[in-house]
């Protein structure tokens, strides 16, 4: 087996390298900003699917907003998000810190090289514009192509996301399409410029299980065709099994565990991950014990975000005195990291 240094030398650099990313929202004058992300460290490699798993308040959407440069101006940011970019074909790769990039530069990246699929396509699409024109608009913003070529590009991407009657979809207004069709349109819109990274923020939240499966299939197929890396944000671990390559578990603005999906689901190490996965039928020790669902006791309180120790300590069943210190991300195996002092128990 190759040693650690060998791996580093042959592996391509990550597409996105996030280090110590700390984001806060300014609530009012003179008040300290409300923390949303705390020292997040994460790498995204070209072409991989990374699932970001967490419950409400975990900071999943703030993380997406940070990568896309869509944080509100009333936010504080620290740390770095480096994006690997090649300005011209023959030039060397450069790492650019997205947090320090100006809005003009952003406009050439957002939509073309980093794209987003939003939660509700019914709301994110313009209701008074034909669907085809909305996809063409993305091409027009980034490529100088004639109208006919743009239209061709749109029709091609619509065919790729599985529409048989491309003409009907192209000319339709959003309200004339079903929920499933709108989702596919949103995927087409995000992928039309063949971006290197796509972020999908709970794209299937409002759908029933059957429709969810269909959308995931389209997304997976497209991701393979285009070769983009995909960040898939969800609160439902079941969607990630058999779909994502890696899973990143977030809790209260921290990454508490990350690793290959199979490894994390087979052997969750962080007490929070264990508690979350126990709720699912088919997972280890799922089901009722003494007439109760195995859950995670307590709730995440706003005051807990400020802790200098382990963020999960107040709700944790294996906590000890050492948990009042801040845990560091310990590398358990190749790519499996966990921030817990007691992960072995």
């Amino acid at each position: 087996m190759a040693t650690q240094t060998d791996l580093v030398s042959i592996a391509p650099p990550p597409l996105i390298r996030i280090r110590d990313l700390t984001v806060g929202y300014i609530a009012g004058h003179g008040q300290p900003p409300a923390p949303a992300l705390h020292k997040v460290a994460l790498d995204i490699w070209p072409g991989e699917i990374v699932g970001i798993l967490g419950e409400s308040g975990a900071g999943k959407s703030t993380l997406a907003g940070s990568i896309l440069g869509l944080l509100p101006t009333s936010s504080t940011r620290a740390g770095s998000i480096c994006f690997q970019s090649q300005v011209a074909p023959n030039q060397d790769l450069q790492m650019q810190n997205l947090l320090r990039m100006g809005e003009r530069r952003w406009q050439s990246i957002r939509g073309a090289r980093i794209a987003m699929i939003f939660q509700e396509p019914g709301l994110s699409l313009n209701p008074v514009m034909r669907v085809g024109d909305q996809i063409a608009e993305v091409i027009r913003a980034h490529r100088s192509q004639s109208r006919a070529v743009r239209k061709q590009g749109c029709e091609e991407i619509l065919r790729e996301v599985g529409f048989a009657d491309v003409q009907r979809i192209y000319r339709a207004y959003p309200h004339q399409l079903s929920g499933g069709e709108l989702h596919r349109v949103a995927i087409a819109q995000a992928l039309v410029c063949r971006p290197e990274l796509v972020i999908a923020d709970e794209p299937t939240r409002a759908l029933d299980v059957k429709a969810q499966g269909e959308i995931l299939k389209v997304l997976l197929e497209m991701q393979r065709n285009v070769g983009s890396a995909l960040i898939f944000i969800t609160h439902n671990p079941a969607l990630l099994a058999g779909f994502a390559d890696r899973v990143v578990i977030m809790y209260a603005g921290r990454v508490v565990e990350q690793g290959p999906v199979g490894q994390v689901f087979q052997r969750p190490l962080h007490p929070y991950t264990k508690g979350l996965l126990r709720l699912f039928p088919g997972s280890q020790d799922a089901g009722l014990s003494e007439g109760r669902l195995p859950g995670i006791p307590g709730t995440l309180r706003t005051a807990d975000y400020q802790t200098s120790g382990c963020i999960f300590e107040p709700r944790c069943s294996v906590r000890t005195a050492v948990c009042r210190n801040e845990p560091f991300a310990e590398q358990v195996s190749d790519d499996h990291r966990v921030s817990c002092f007691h992960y072995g128990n």
Partner: protein
Amino acid sequence: MGTEATARAPKTALVRIAALSKRYSQAGGLMGKRFVVDALRGADLDIAPGCLTALVGGSGSGKSTLAKCVAMLEKADSGEIWFEGNTIWPGTSKQLSRLRPKIQMVFQDSASALNPRLSAAQIVAEPLEIQNLGKRSQLRERACELMTEVGLSPDWADRRPLEFSGGQRQRLAIARAIALKPALLILDESLSGLDLSTQAQILNLLLDLQAAHSLTYLLISHDLTLVGQVADFIAVMHQGKIVETGNRQQVLGSPQHAHSKELAASVRVVEEAYRTARVGIER
């Protein structure tokens, strides 16, 4: 089963619903066409006492209409509903008002279901006040007891609903619903929109309350991930009819109707996903 059910009042079921139909119609717009929806088309359902019955089905299958008819918030066009052996539909409004406290409902969106201008204690005490069940000071004390029972600190009695988290608000709605010691609690998608770990906590609370007060639940849901683990009975609804009922093992294990098969398959997909995730690592 329908005709037999109509023939006599139930002996064992807490609620028996027979051949219930309900049509919503709306006067037409410019074209003068009437817009008609048959929400219920002869639904039959028995709700066993002391059990948790899950009512599942796709959107538009009539789940909420059925629940509203049982809660006497909506009037069915035809069919019958019995509660503890008494007819509640068709029934006179006098009979109904006597029975109303016994059937309570918890809605999906607690943020809009609870009056934002009342304090937590006022919200919980309001049903008691309406039924003239005590003086003001007693009501507040009782409200604090109920809050404690659902896992909310009485110190929060003066907070407004929007100062609570989603899960806490749903606990508040449950405290209000059990204030009058009902026999039947209807939860209309009350867990949807909550995080899974919060859903599990609320379900555990419901199980505790059931043991303490011998409550019967009718829980409407479109997601069987957790509900499928705790429901005693599952009734599957499709196009205004109950197409299958049975205990959890029957409906999830060997579903008969095409629609139930789909639902059961969705639960199995989740299990399968975990299994393959595991197999992946074993190889």
